[in-house]
């Protein structure tokens, strides 16, 4: 009987979280906006997420299931400080759901005003290599590249289009994140502390907003 009830709520079975992550503050904020004591419940539009200005009825903070890669294992001369595969299992979404927003957060443990500059590159994996072939047969497409200083603890990237295409599970091969030090004039290549600051890397997380068309019928605009 319980399973039947859970299915009606869109859950295949009773969730059994193994290592439940912390609840992101943005989700607490959205929850309190909708369900808090001061909420005007009757007027709340639960099919629109005002904080992101997108239509949506479900917001998910999806855990990254990717692994770290030792960049020196495939290329001993590389200057890359951090290389990580990112994989977000979005097959958990129901068929009726349409992604209206995808935002990747790259989180660091601390920020430093005088921190050094880094280059960040985010690739989308378009073809995987066979086991044991390393990165040689893996093809990837550059999604974004930017230079940053650790002024803030988090960096955000718009992945809406990528998430929309990932709804076809065959197209979801994940991402690769690479961070390398930017060569500044006063610094010499090969310095030991080149990667200092990046060790504070904590985690990546994907915030996805979806709209269930069956649940949220959009009203026609008034003439």
């Amino acid at each position, binding site marked *: 009987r319980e399973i039947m009830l859970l299915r009606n*709520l*869109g*859950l*295949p*079975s*009773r*969730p*059994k*979280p*193994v*290592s*439940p*992550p912390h*609840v*992101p503050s943005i*989700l*607490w904020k*959205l*929850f309190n906006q*909708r*369900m808090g004591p001061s909420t005007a*419940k*009757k007027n709340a539009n*639960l*099919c629109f997420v005002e904080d992101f200005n997108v239509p949506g*009825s*479900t*917001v*998910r*903070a*999806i*855990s990254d299931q990717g692994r770290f890669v030792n960049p020196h294992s495939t290329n001993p001369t590389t200057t890359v400080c951090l290389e990580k595969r990112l994989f977000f*299992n979005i097959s*958990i979404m129901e068929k009726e759901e349409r992604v209206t927003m995808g935002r990747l957060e790259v989180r660091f443990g601390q920020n430093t005003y005088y921190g050094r500059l880094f280059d960040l590159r985010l690739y989308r994996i378009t073809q995987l290599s066979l086991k044991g072939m390393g990165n040689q047969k893996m093809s990837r497409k550059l999604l974004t590249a930017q230079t940053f200083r650790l002024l803030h603890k988090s960096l955000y990237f718009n992945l809406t289009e990528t998430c929309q295409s990932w709804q076809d599970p065959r197209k979801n091969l994940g991402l690769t994140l690479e961070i390398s030090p930017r060569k500044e004039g006063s610094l010499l290549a090969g310095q030991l502390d080149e990667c200092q600051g990046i060790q504070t890397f904590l985690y990546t997380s994907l915030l996805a907003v979806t709209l269930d068309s069956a*649940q949220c019928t959009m009203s026609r605009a008034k003439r």
Partner: protein
Amino acid sequence: SHGRLKFLPSNMCKRRRLYVEFGDVGWQKWVIAPRGYFANYCQGECPYPLTDVLNGSNHAILQTLAHSFEPNDVPLPCCIPIKMSPISVLFYDNGDNVVLKHYENMSVDECGC
């Protein structure tokens, strides 16, 4: 705060308070918030004649009339929710993701015949 206050005899169709605590149904390990909510329910009689306060539908009025002629064949209308509201639930799914989802028709605001 939901709906109008109605002073009806206790056996008449009206909204009854029901607070569902997720801990009581064993869902506390994966539902993060709220801890519970006012689900409420409808219970009571819809007798002849249906007064305004019973929120009788046109169908219920005619069914009541038919019942007065054929009490054994036609039952009295029943008491059901006529206005419901959604709630939002914050929970963990099976992939250890945090989900904020809104569910329609979870809380009974008004009842009628």
